[in-house]
């Protein structure tokens, strides 16, 4: 079975600090793609960052970066210089073929 585990249902970070959200997954496939999505309160889910599993280099998008450990099946998201607008539910996901598998989400609070 394909599964995605986000072990931290809730996290908080001080504004301007760094926070890391964890994600582990389980698949026997070798070719897949990983994503982090952000869902602000009452707003649309949007893509934060993506990573190809065959690439060893970790993806980076401005203040967002990932730590991808393929052997450990781990895909954590690091948010640097946290801002109030980063407060949201964050979902980790991977895709095999045409099907996405999502984690249960981590709710991030940013403290001013």
């Amino acid at each position: 079975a394909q599964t995605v585990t986000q072990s931290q249902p809730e996290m908080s970070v001080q504004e301007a600090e760094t926070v890391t959200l964890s994600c582990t997954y389980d698949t026997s496939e070798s070719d897949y793609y990983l994503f982090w999505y952000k869902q602000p309160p009452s707003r649309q889910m949007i893509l934060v960052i993506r990573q190809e599993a065959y690439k060893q280099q970790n993806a980076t998008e401005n203040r967002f970066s990932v730590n991808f450990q393929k052997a450990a099946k781990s895909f954590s998201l690091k948010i640097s210089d946290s801002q109030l607008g980063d407060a949201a539910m964050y979902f980790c996901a991977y895709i095999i073929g045409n099907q996405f598998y999502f984690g249960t989400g981590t709710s991030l609070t940013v403290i001013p």
Partner: protein
Amino acid sequence: DVKVTQSSRYLVKRTGEKVFLECVQDMDHENMFWYRQDPGLGLRLIYFSYDVKMKEKGDIPEGYSVSREKKERFSLILESASTNQTSMYLCASRGTYSLEAQYFGPGTRLLVL
């Protein structure tokens, strides 16, 4: 920018009613998806479609059906709404490129009384 729209943000229906949720995308995407989002359960796939008139069951298709008569439109149908179908419903679309993300609509929050 990809735009995915859903027919309603909020919907209140009575048990036993037939409910239609509509989703429209403007990027000529082949793939469209319906998810249900519940607290603590994440997103669960109900159905997806990879082409017009084509559909595949997801993880929780029971009590739901779908229709895709045109490429840009994907409808979710609750044949006879029940209280346990009270939830947030998210539609998404996606092209065929491997690394392409899904693009989500704003969601429909359905309450079944």
